[in-house]
């Protein structure tokens, strides 16, 4: 949104997926206002599930033009590949902005009822905002309902909420712990496998060298919700227009707050906001020793922290119980068909090609982290040795993480706004102004009043 962020984006490879982590700062006008449903309407009531797989073949035969809005750079090759295979289909790929700019444009087009793209990239955390408003087409009848086993459970759960299939997963961000092995070795600290060990390692590192920290964190909505997710929390529950927001009483939130409160109190976290230039430098020069984040991170590190090549490694996410292997998703995008599209069947042909067909390999070659079980388990993918990570087969760990995402997580249908006010509430705890648990409760209160204002029935 702001030039500073754009600047850091230039340093790093533009990634679809990491926007979600930065949702705290993403300011987007979403929500399908114009098409907002009446209070009694559920998202699946629109009869959007029309059509069947035969329509798709017929549409492909007939051909036509499609408009696709996305900022993911790997889609360009996918479009080219598709057009080569189906010469009578012409797809116009337009980048109308990244993240929030994209959503504002999409929202405006939907509200105006003209110029709406047939297909649009939508991040998982923002899907609810569009599907609840009835702006997205339910693609289950085109054959998407048979694709469940094609994708890993995390992304599939995200796109199939509320009784429909609102998109198909493009990429995902199963989490892992990236760590600077050199820092751990030099300081003689064990690489943590549980969150308790993580706090101990944080102490050991900072005590041994006060200029070094276990990680940088000034509060990040996407990260916080992911860690709560991993801890088994379900602070957000959505059933039509009935929404539950319960951070104050959520067990996962309490676990997160416990661990992070300790580290904040003892000043074990570097006070560097994510995605700033300082942040990349801190990764580059060993100021921060770990980064717990989504599987899409390696490309960003290669370009943003080039001097640290060979020093970093990947390990599974720290666990809440020793020996467990629970993980969560962080970021990731899906591709959706708009309800306003008049060529849904043709659009679905491309959708399936890009997310579950030949387009997947094209995107992997372009650096995307796949969501398809088959590719995640292919020998070629698993056997890839990353030079940046000292020849480690990082995809083994990342792919494993994708299979172990805790199920049952839901985002709010107004998550974009909720994340944007995170610094005003939970963020205050990172400055020491208020306890983390109080910050989470403040966040809950702000989300509750916003949700009620927007016509949802929010309970805590």
């Amino acid at each position, binding site marked *: 949104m702001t*030039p500073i962020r754009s*600047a850091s984006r230039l340093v790093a490879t533009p990634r679809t997926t990491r926007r979600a982590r930065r949702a705290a700062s993403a300011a987007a006008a979403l929500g399908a206002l114009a098409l*907002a449903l009446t209070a009694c309407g559920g998202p699946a009531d629109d009869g959007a599930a029309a059509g069947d797989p035969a329509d798709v073949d017929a549409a492909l035969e007939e051909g036509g033009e499609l408009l696709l809005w996305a900022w993911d750079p790997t889609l360009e090759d996918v479009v080219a590949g598709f057009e080569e295979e189906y010469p009578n289909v012409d797809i116009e790929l337009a980048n109308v902005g990244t993240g929030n700019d994209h959503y504002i444009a999409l929202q405006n087009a939907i509200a105006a009822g003209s110029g709406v793209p047939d297909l649009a990239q939508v991040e998982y955390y923002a899907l609810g905002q569009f599907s609840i408003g009835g702006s997205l087409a339910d693609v289950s009848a085109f054959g998407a309902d048979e694709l469940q086993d094609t994708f890993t459970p995390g992304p599939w759960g995200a796109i199939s909420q509320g009784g429909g299939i609102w998109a198909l997963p493009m990429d995902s961000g199963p989490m892992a712990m990236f760590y600077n092995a050199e820092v751990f070795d030099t300081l003689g600290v064990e690489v943590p496998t549980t969150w308790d060990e993580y706090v101990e390692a944080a102490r050991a590192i900072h005590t041994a060298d006060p200029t070094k920290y276990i990680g940088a964190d000034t509060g990040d909505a996407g990260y916080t919700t992911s860690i709560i997710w991993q801890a088994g929390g379900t602070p957000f529950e959505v059933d039509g227009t009935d929404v539950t927001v319960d951070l104050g009483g959520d067990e996962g939130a309490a676990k997160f707050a416990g661990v992070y409160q300790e580290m904040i109190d003892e000043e074990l976290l570097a006070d560097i906001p994510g995605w700033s230039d300082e942040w990349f430098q801190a990764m580059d020069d060993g*100021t921060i020793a770990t980064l717990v984040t989504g599987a899409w991170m390696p490309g960003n590190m290669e370009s943003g922290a080039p001097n640290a090549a060979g020093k970093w490694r990947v390990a599974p996410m720290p666990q809440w119980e020793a020996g467990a292997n629970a993980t969560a998703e962080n970021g990731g995008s899906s591709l959706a068909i708009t309800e306003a599209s008049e060529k849904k069947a043709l659009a679905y042909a491309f959708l399936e090609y890009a997310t579950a067909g030949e387009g997947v390999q094209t995107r992997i070659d372009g650096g995307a982290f796949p969501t398809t079980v088959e590719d995640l388990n292919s020998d070629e993918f698993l056997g890839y040795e990353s030079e940046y990570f000292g020849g480690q087969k990082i995809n083994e760990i990342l792919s494993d993480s994708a299979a172990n995402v805790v199920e049952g997580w839901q985002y709010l249908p107004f998550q974009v706004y909720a994340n944007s*006010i995170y610094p005003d509430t939970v963020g205050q705890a990172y*400055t020491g102004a208020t306890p983390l648990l109080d910050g989470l409760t403040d966040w809950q209160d702000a989300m509750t009043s916003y949700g009620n204002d927007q016509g949802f029935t929010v309970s805590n």
Partner: protein
Amino acid sequence: MSRKGRAAWTGWGFLSPFLAVFALVFAAPIGYALYLSLFRRQMVGGNSFVGLDNYARALGDDQFWAGVGRVGLFLVVQVPIMLGLALFIALALDSGRVHGMGFFRISIFMPYAVPGVVAALMWGFMYGERFGLVGNINDAFGVSVPDPLRSDFVLAAIGNIVTWEFVGYNMLIMYAALRVIDPALYEAARIDGAGQWRIVGAIKLPAIRGALVIATIFSIIGSFQLFNEPSILQALSPNYISTSYTPNLYAYSLSFAGQQYNYSAAIAIIMGVLTMIVAYAVQLRGMRRED
């Protein structure tokens, strides 16, 4: 009678290009904002007329008033400093005793030519405690200057950027006003035995009062509309610059992140009215003795 009527129409004819543009770019947006502010659109439930509810809500909104208080504080501290500096520089240049006057004039004015967003970015880098200028100062002198971005000093840090940007602009307004004073007045004053300070107090300041009032009003409007600098620095200091840090920032995040266009319009209109009242009061006060 018919002649009078024709004359009146001719006048409108000349005015119409202006009126058309005025209606399009000024009246219509304000009218639309007023219209928007009377409704409430929800994600669930759609659009409904709510009368003055949005205004009532704004009047009781602590976040909004905290933002107003913040720009108020900014106004009473930063504006006098900036205008004082600008006046001092304008008088110094006008005294004719400064060597390389042209150079100083242009170099002090230069920051104004830097777009506000770029200026905020630039200062954002300099303020960096780890790799920026502040970091260098801390390292070089072994001191620990409080982090200008990640502490309660952030408002002062913003004030510094705004001062740097606008001193030259205000200086130029004042300097231009000083240049049109008839030099014969200075000569006469000197013959009467007046020194430089006396000339400043008795001739120069009264003569440029109009320019001072204008500069003050511009600065008041600028303070109330504070947006660029906090919006850019927010990325570096999210926990110290909230989404409601200034009223404009609040209106922005309400509409673009929260889709509360209607409430945001009400906030913008209240802020516009407040700004008008304060600016008008200053103008009345500043012009009083000239009547």
